[in-house]
C-alpha cells in the first residue's frame, strides 16, 4: 500500500538508470543519511560512537571490498586482513614521512598502494580458482603480516613493532586522529568516506566493469568466449577490492584504535570479514553493511544483555554464553536464509509491495 512503484512514471533515460528507481526507496535512503549524519552524532554517547559505530562502518567498508572480489567477481579471498594491514602501514609510513600531507590524501594513497599489492597477489587468480585461490590468498595474508613484523622499516624501527597514528586534521582545524580528536569528528569523517566509497562501489557494480565481474563469477569460460578479458577483469576486481580493504585498514589504525600491531590484522580478521560477507549476502552492497552490523554489534549486544536485566552473572559465563548464542544465531540465519541478510531485506521489500493484500 505504502511501498509500490505503481503510478511512478519515468520519462527520461536518466530516471530509468537511477540507482533507486522507486520513490519510497529514495526517501528511505535520504532519511537514513539524515539519521546517520545528523541524529546519530546528536544523540549517541561516546561509547556508541567509538566502540559501535566506528568499527561497524570501518569493517563494513572492508566487507564491501571483499564483497566486490568474492561476491561480484567470484574470487574467494582470505587475504583481507593482510590487505587491511597494508593499508594501515602504508598510511603510517606516508603520514610519518610527509607530515604535512592531508589525511584524506594519506588514506586514499594508502588505498592505492594496497591496490597495487592486491594486483600483485591477484595474478595467480588467472590460473587457480575456488578453494585453491583461497589458499593462495591465505598465503598473501601470512606473507604480508610476516613482512610487517620482520622489517623494522615499516614501523620506523619501533621496539615493539606497533604503529601509532600522528594527530591529523581536516579543514585545517578539526582533528580526526590522535588523542584529542572528538568522537563526533572521527565518526563524521569515517561516515563521509564510507558513504562516498559506497556510492562509488554501487555505481561500479552497475557499470560494464561490474557486469564483467558478474559474468566471470557466473561462468568464466562463457565470459571469456563472449570476449571478456580474463586477466584484466580479475585484476580490476583485485585492485578495487584491495583499495577498499586498504582504506578500511588505514581508518582502523588511524581513527579507530589509534595504534595497531600487525596482529590486529591476523587471519582472524580475514575470517571475520569473510563471515560478514557470507552472512550479509554475497554480491550485495547492502549485505556488506548488514553483515558487519551482525558480526560487530551482536556480540556487544549479547555481552551487555545480562546487565540490562539486572542479572549478576560472572564475566566468564557471559563470554561463554555470548559465544554459544552467537554461533546459534549464525546457524539460524543461514538456515532461514542461505543467501544472507541482504536477501531477507529484498524479500521484505517484495512482501511490502503486496501488503496488506498478499495473494
Amino acid at each position, binding site marked *: 500500500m505504502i511501498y509500490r512503484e505503481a503510478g511512478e512514471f519515468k520519462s527520461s533515460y536518466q530516471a530509468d538508470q537511477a540507482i533507486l528507481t522507486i520513490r519510497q526507496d529514495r526517501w528511505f535512503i535520504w532519511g537514513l543519511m539524515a539519521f546517520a549524519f545528523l541524529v546519530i552524532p546528536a544523540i549517541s554517547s561516546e561509547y556508541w560512537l567509538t566502540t559501535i559505530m566506528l568499527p561497524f562502518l570501518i569493517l563494513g567498508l572492508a566487507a564491501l571490498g571483499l564483497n566486490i572480489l568474492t561476491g561480484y567477481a567470484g574470487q574467494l579471498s582470505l587475504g583481507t586482513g593482510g590487505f587491511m594491514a597494508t593499508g594501515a602501514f602504508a598510511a603510517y609510513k606516508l603520514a610519518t614521512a610527509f607530515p604535512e600531507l592531508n589525511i584524506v590524501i594519506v588514506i586514499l594513497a594508502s588505498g592505492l598502494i594496497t591496490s597495487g599489492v592486491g594486483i600483485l597477489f591477484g595474478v595467480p587468480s588467472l590460473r587457480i580458482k575456488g578453494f585453491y585461490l583461497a589458499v593462495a590468498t591465505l598465503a598473501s595474508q601470512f606473507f604480508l603480516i610476516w613482512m610487517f613484523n620482520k622489517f623494522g622499516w615499516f614501523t620506523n624501527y619501533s621496539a615493539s613493532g606497533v604503529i*601509532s597514528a600522528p594527530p591529523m586534521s581536516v579543514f585545517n582545524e578539526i582533528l580526526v586522529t590522535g588523542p584529542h580528536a572528538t568522537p563526533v569528528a572521527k565518526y563524521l569523517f569515517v561516515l563521509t568516506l564510507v558513504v562516498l566509497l559506497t556510492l562509488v562501489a554501487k555505481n561500479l557494480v552497475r557499470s560494464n566493469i561490474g557486469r564483467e565481474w558478474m559474468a566471470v563469477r557466473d561462468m568464466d569460460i562463457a565470459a571469456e568466449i563472449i570476449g571478456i578479458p580474463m586477466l584484466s577483469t580479475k585484476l580490476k576486481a583485485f585492485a578495487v577490492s584491495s583499495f577498499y580493504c586498504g582504506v578500511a585498514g588505514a581508518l582502523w589504525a588511524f581513527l579507530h584504535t589509534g595504534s595497531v600491531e600487525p*596482529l590486529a590484522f591476523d587471519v582472524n580478521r580475514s575470517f571475520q570479514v569473510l563471515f560478514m560477507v557470507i552472512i550479509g549476502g554475497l554480491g550485495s552492497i547492502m549485505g556488506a553493511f548488514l553483515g558487519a552490523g551482525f558480526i560487530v554489534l551482536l556480540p556487544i549486544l549479547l555481552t551487555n544483555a545480562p546487565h540490562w536485566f539486572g542479572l549478576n552473572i560472572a564475566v566468564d559465563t557471559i563470554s561463554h554464553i555470548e559465544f554459544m548464542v552467537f554461533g546459534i544465531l549464525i546457524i539460524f540465519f543461514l538456515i532461514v536464509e542461505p543467501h544472507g541478510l541482504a536477501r531477507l531485506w529484498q524479500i521484505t521489500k517484495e512482501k511490502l509491495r503486496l501488503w496488506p493484500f498478499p495473494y
Partner: protein
Amino acid sequence: MNIRKLKFGIGVATLGAATLLGATASFAADTQFIGSLVYRTGPYAPGGIPWADGFSDYFRLLNERDGGINGVMLELEECDTAYNTDKGVECYERLKNKGSTGMPAVSPLSTGITYALLDRVVADKIPLITSGYGRADAADGRVFPYAFVLPSTYWGGADIAIHHIADLEGGYGSLKGKKIALVYHDSAYGKEPIKTLETLGAQHGFELSLFPVPHPGLEQKATWLKIGRQLRPDYVLMWGWGVMNATAIKEAAAVGFPRDKMIGVWWSGNEPDVITAGQAALGYKALQMNRVGADFPLHKDIVKVLYDNGKGTASTPKDVGSAIYNRGIQSAIYLAEALRTAMNEFGNKPVTGEQVQWALDRFSLTEERIAEIGVTGLFAPVELSCIDHQGQGQAMVTQWDGKQWKPITELIAPNMEMLRPMYEESAAQYAKEKGITPRTCG
C-alpha cells in the same frame, strides 16, 4: 520467512536497541568504582584467571576488613577481554564512565590492549598502570603523563636476565662470544626486549639469535630443533605467554636443551606453565617481580576473611599465593595505594582518574607501608616521580624445583644508567611522531 515473523524480529531488535540506549547502571554516589579488564576466557585464560582473582580479592578484602579505603567502599566491575584487543577497547569504553567518578585507572594485562588505549587514556585522563608489561618507554613520564610502568619493564627484565647470566659466567667480561637465543611471542609483547638485548649484545660481545613464535605458540618443533641441534646457544631467554610457555619447556626437553639455561620473563614463570610441562620443567628459571607464596600476613587475611566465609573471588583458595595471583595482588596494592594517596589529598570521597594520576606522579610505597599492608618481601618499595614512571625496576631470578618457584638471587636492579637514555630516546621519537610536547617536570 513470512512478514509476521519478520515484524516480530524487527520489534525485538528495536526493543533491544532501545534498552541498550537507555541502559544506565546505578551506582551509589559514595563508593569508588574500579573497572577491571580481565580475561577469564580465551587462549590465555589460565594466566588471566589467577591474576584477576588476586586483583579482585585484594579489593574485596579491603571492603570486608577495613571498610574500603579511607572509609570509601570499593565497587569492582570486571569486563572480559579474552586477551583480544577489539574487546579490550570495547570494555574500556564501557567501563570508563561508570560509577560516580568514572574509572580511576586501568590495567589491561595485555600489551596489545595497552597500545590501543595509550591515546584514549590521555583524552579521558585515566591513568594506565601496566605492571610488568606494556610500553617500556612509558617510563618517561614527560611524554607519557598518563602511563605508568611500575615496578619494571621488559627492557629492565632483559637487562636483569643478562645480568644473571653474567653472574653465572663470572662477570660481564665472560659474555664475549657467548650465544644467547630469544624465543618470543611474535607480538608487541614479545618484541619489546629485542632492542635492549641487541644493545647489550653489542656492548658485551654476545651473539643474539631471534626466534619468533606465532600466536598462540603450540607449534615450536622447528624452532627448538634449530636451537637444540643446530645453533646450540649457551642460554635461551623466553618471552612467552599462555600455552606457549609449557610447549617451549617440553620442546626444550625433547631436544635435550638444559632447562637451567632457560630464563623466562615473569609472564613465562607461572605455575600453570611448569605444572603442565611436568618433569620437563625441573630446573627451569624465570624472573619474578614479586615473591611467590602464601605465607604473608595479607594472604592469611585473604583466606581467613574471604575464603573461609565463602566471599573469595574464586571458589577455592588453591591459587592464593601462586606467582601470577601475587602479581594480581601487587597490581591491586599499587592501585589501592594510589587511590589512598589521592583521597588523602582531595578528600575521602571517590576520586577521578585525573586525581589518581596526580597521586601516581608522586607515588611512594615505602618499606614501612609495605609492612603495614602485610606483604613484607612480596615486592620492593617503589618511588615514582613526574619524570620517572617506572621506579627501580627490580626483579629476581627463581627456579622451579617441582613444587615451587625457589628464589635463587636477591632482587636485582636493572642498569638504569643504560636504560634511562634508551627510554628517553624512544619516548622522544614517539613524541615527535605523535606531535606531543613533553611536559616539563619541575
